[in-house]
């Protein structure tokens, strides 16, 4: 069996829970899994040894990991990682990093893996209209979509080795522009409430925000909403030319369900559609469809959530 290397996924300076999902995927692709944690302080990796299924933790310590720089990260992580199949998350940043790691090692990169069976990896192609199954003829770099693989448990105990690494920075951060709202970005959220042109006015998105606040959700939008209303930024757009999301729950309100919108959200675990047109294509993809105007349905939903969530 090939050795595997998982690059830990970080958010807000901590190891993100999707890392456990990556370890599960690694177990399906090979054995002897090394977890490499990019960090500026090795304490970040302190608890990582408890993830079940890994044999070793390498805390790859370097000042280059302060902010993301593709070239420097790839160089540092490549030097910290043994040979084998390298596995990262399929977040935008990690996909970028994975492509560089693969190029550095002159191997192929397989992005957005959504399934692994008997050594065959499945990835969506044509925006999820088809699935491509590929097999590896050697080492490769593989990125794994979040929320699909069962997370590995935390009942293990292996050593953490600290390794000083470095790389050449190719970019210099000039400014971080914090998002105006405190709200989660659609690419980070487990639950997304999205509005389309059917919302009528951008001000009506406040009704979606109210629901989102109850659920700890992000607010998304269709392209029609983004294109029609200046107040709805492109960063909220889900779909072919927006973000691809994979939440546990996607609530589409006043969205018709065009193929390009589906491209960005069809792999959501559960889809709820609220639309006044019973024939809207979104209903073919919804687990739960509500044929009603949002003006009528959202207050009921809001009240029900309030009593359920206490």
């Amino acid at each position, binding site marked *: 069996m090939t050795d595997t290397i998982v690059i830990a996924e970080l958010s807000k300076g901590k190891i993100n829970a999707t890392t456990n999902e990556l370890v599960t995927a690694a177990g399906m692709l090979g054995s002897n899994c090394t977890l490499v944690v990019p960090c500026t302080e090795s304490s970040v990796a302190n608890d990582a040894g408890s993830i079940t299924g890994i044999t070793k933790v390498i805390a790859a310590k370097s000042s280059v990991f302060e902010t993301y720089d593709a070239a420097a990260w790839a160089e540092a992580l490549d030097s910290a990682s043994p040979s084998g199949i390298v596995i990262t998350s399929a977040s935008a940043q990690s996909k970028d990093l994975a492509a560089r790691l693969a*190029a550095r090692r002159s191997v*192929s990169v397989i992005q957005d893996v959504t399934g692994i069976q008997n050594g065959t990896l499945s990835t*969506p192609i*044509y925006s999820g209209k*088809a699935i491509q199954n*590929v097999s590896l003829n050697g080492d490769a770099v593989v990125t794994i979509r979040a929320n699909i693989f069962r997370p590995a448990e935390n009942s293990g105990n292996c050593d953490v080795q600290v390794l000083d690494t470095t790389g050449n920075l190719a970019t*210099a951060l000039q400014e*971080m522009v914090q998002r105006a709202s405190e709200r989660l970005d659609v690419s980070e959220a487990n639950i997304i409430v999205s509005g389309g042109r059917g919302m009528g006015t951008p001000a009506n998105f406040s009704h979606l925000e109210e629901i989102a606040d109850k659920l700890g959700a992000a607010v998304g939008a269709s392209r029609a909403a983004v294109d029609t209303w200046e107040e709805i930024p492109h960063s909220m757009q889900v779909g072919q030319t927006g973000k691809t999301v994979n939440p546990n729950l996607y609530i589409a309100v006043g969205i018709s369900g065009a193929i390009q919108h589906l491209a960005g959200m069809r792999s959501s675990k559960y889809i709820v559609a609220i639309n006044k047109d*019973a024939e809207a294509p979104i209903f073919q993809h919804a687990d739960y469809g509500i044929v009603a105007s949002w003006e009528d349905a959202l207050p009921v939903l809001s009240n029900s959530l309030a009593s359920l969530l206490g």
Partner: protein
Amino acid sequence: MVNIAVLVKQVPDTNSKIQIVGDRVDLSSVKMEISPYDEFAVENALQHKESEGGTVTAITVGNDGADKVLKGVKALGVDNIVRLDYDGYMDSNGLQSVLADEIKSGGYDVVYCGKSAADTGAGSTGPGIAERLGWGSISNATEIKFGEGLMVTSPAEGGDAIASLSLPAVVSCDKGSIKVRKSNVKGIMMAKRAQVDVKSVSPPSPTITIVSEVMPPAKPAGKKYEGAQSAQTVAQLLRDEANVI
């Protein structure tokens, strides 16, 4: 004078239906067009030229069917169009190798590409080429300011990062706020007569094998309710059946 390259790819029109014949996607009756994000890459390349002076060369990999996409961007104002002629399957390693070789021999200062292609959705090409060339790169750029180097805005945790990037470099482009120009009749006429510079390539053999291509598993039919009051039922199901809230 900046020597600018922009990578373009032909993909099925995003409205098209994808069919499987045997165990492969069959594109024979599908309309092909330029991959949507590549349009932003072309626009940025042209704006870079207009700002700093230079030439823009569009490069694609494929068979002669891809010439249509090259002529399309020629009509927008691209100076040169190059096709790396290949009709078989290349994995990411093969594709990036031939593109990196071409970029190196062309003496380019900067490469623009789309953040991902609408067929694979992978987004590996830009950063992969940069790594092979030993260049810096920024992916998913939403805004670019041109000068001696580039000032690039791209999404980062909690917001946007604005970073400087010196040339040579690769930038993969997201939509952002730029408006993509349209071709005019004069441009289209000129593009018709334009010569595609066709070059042969020999990529390293793939290190992965495509086993099959299949339709996505059909989702079991959902539950559909009439009327606003059903929102209460659905909320309850989200808790009891789906366990997601």
